[in-house]
């Protein structure tokens, strides 16, 4: 699953067209567009709206182990050595209001230049607002990172920023923004391909018959939640070693234990039995 976040609809438009995303009306608080395993959300400008939108979308997902999230948007550049229309992968995000930094793990083998980005609460119209910061500036990235990293690991988040101005933002129009993003679409598309191709670790599961054994033992011995976790780990190791769950486990369930201490004794013996296989 790939989630794309943009602040503005005009930033999202080339991506919506490229991936033929359709508006999903089941989302009522933000504009959300989806197709297959891509979901795009438009938050509106600013850190707070971004945090709320990303949280809103991620909190609705039941399994995030295979999720990846990408922020695409325009950014100002403090130096003219960063070309207008150039796309950067962000390797550090500085939240200028708190001083906190966020670091996405750059683990894909990409060919974009990288840069540091600072998020400000107001439009950065000249270097006096940007202060000492050299690099990219925007108004959303820190909110994006704070929300995304609440749900995901740093290897699951990516930010791609396209230089739209050199702190002379007043000339920018919505159409102009769309044109900037559209101009970099081949690079953004390539980045999306790389992100999608990155393999994330899957959480291991026991085959169905072995899961059923856990359920039967849990019910039979009235196991606590902690004991269930212990049993799952022990059975997983046992299955890994011998390729099966030995059938004699049922004898540890009969007769049903009549006290917690008897249940605990029986449980320890059962674990020893599985560990000995």
């Amino acid at each position, binding site marked *: 699953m790939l989630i794309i976040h943009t602040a503005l609809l005009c930033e999202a438009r080339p991506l919506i067209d490229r991936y033929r995303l359709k508006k999903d009306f089941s989302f009522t608080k933000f504009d959300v567009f989806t197709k297959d395993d891509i979901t795009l959300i438009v938050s509106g400008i600013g850190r707070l709206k971004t945090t709320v939108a990303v949280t809103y979308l991620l909190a609705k997902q039941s399994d995030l182990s295979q999720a990846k999230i990408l922020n695409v948007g325009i950014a100002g550049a403090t130096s003219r050595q960063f070309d207008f229309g150039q796309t950067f992968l962000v390797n550090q995000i500085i939240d200028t209001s708190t001083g906190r*930094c966020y670091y996405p793990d750059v683990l894909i083998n990409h060919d974009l230049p990288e840069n540091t980005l600072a998020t400000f609460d107001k439009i950065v119209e000249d270097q006096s607002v940007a202060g000492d910061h050299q690099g990219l500036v925007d108004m959303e990235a820190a909110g994006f990172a704070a929300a995304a990293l609440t749900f995901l690991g740093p*290897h699951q988040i990516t930010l791609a920023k396209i230089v739209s101005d050199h702190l002379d933002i007043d000339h920018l129009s919505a159409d102009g923004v769309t044109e900037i993003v559209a101009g970099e679409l081949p690079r953004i598309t390539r980045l999306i391909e790389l992100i999608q191709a990155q393999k994330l670790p899957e959480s291991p599961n026991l085959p169905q018959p072995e899961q059923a054994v856990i359920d039967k033992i849990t019910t039979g011995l009235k196991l606590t939640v902690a004991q269930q976790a212990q049993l799952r780990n022990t059975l997983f190791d046992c299955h890994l070693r011998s390729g099966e769950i030995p059938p004699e486990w049922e004898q540890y369930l009969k007769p049903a234990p009549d006290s917690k201490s008897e249940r605990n004794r029986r449980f320890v013996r059962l674990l020893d039995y599985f560990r000995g296989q």
Partner: protein
Amino acid sequence: MASNFGHIYLEEAAADYPLTAEICANFPAAQRINIRNYRHFFNRPNQDYNLQKGGLKLILAVKRDDLLYRGSPECQDFNSANFYYNTPLVNCVYDCEYCYLQGKYQSANLLVFVNQDDLMAAVTGQIPRRPEAERPLLLALSYDTDLLAIDNRIPIFKPWVEFARTAENLLVEIRTKSAAVAGLKSIASGKNILLSWTVSPQRIIDLIEHFTPALDRRIQAIGVAIEQGWQVRLSIDPVIHSEDWPQLYLAMIERLFTRLPASAIHDIQFGPFRINENYYRRLRRARPRSLILMQPLVVQDGIVSWPPAQQTELRKRISDQLSRYLPDEKIHPWQI
């Protein structure tokens, strides 16, 4: 090896150290990212250790506290109360599936402390305060890393050897799996420095010691080190359980002593796979299908290891085999 270090995260305080300049010069193409405090990067939550192993980053930082640690019970202490270790560098370019580092740290990235002088000063300060005055302070220098494996680009090994050679009442153990010994020629060895090579049967290396040199290359490297006058310890640790572990390990010992002069070996230590219980939990999350988890393991006093009866068998069989080549006082089995 695991990485060519495409990114260097440079802590503000580390910027002006000579070692920083030297290391950065060795990676001219790396992206440089200035960070305020290395912990903000190194200790991020929810990092994926195994994914990071595929693209290691380098962190250059200053170590401000815990410059020297007391040895932990899982380590071989050679019955010395003077056993300490330190971490001039954290994490390793190799990727051994049994390694406790994946349980100990959130990040697989290589963390280099550039204020090595401060770490040395901490050792110097502890020597007169060691618990057993009649024995030297035993310092394990390379437990959380492999200094020799990366010495050509992160030069920390040589300064420590030079420090140890001139220090009194200090015995330094530098553990390695490296076969990169060409640089040893230009470094004078010292009687109080032990190069400790970890050796494993080739099948174990192939299966779970990723990116490490083959057994024969390690044996060749040990031979070179002996020829150049280094004190060499052998470490068969951890022994990994399998149905045919005795055959695997006994054959490896025979191979070792066919190719190396037993009289030149300072000593040898061995022990079963063992790991702190909390680290084991993280290891099993990180590598849920690892061969490591297929061993019969029990928890005893917070340490996950082989069952006691099998540990006894291990001690007997390995000791018996080693006794064919070495006197008993040079054979050190690990015991809690």
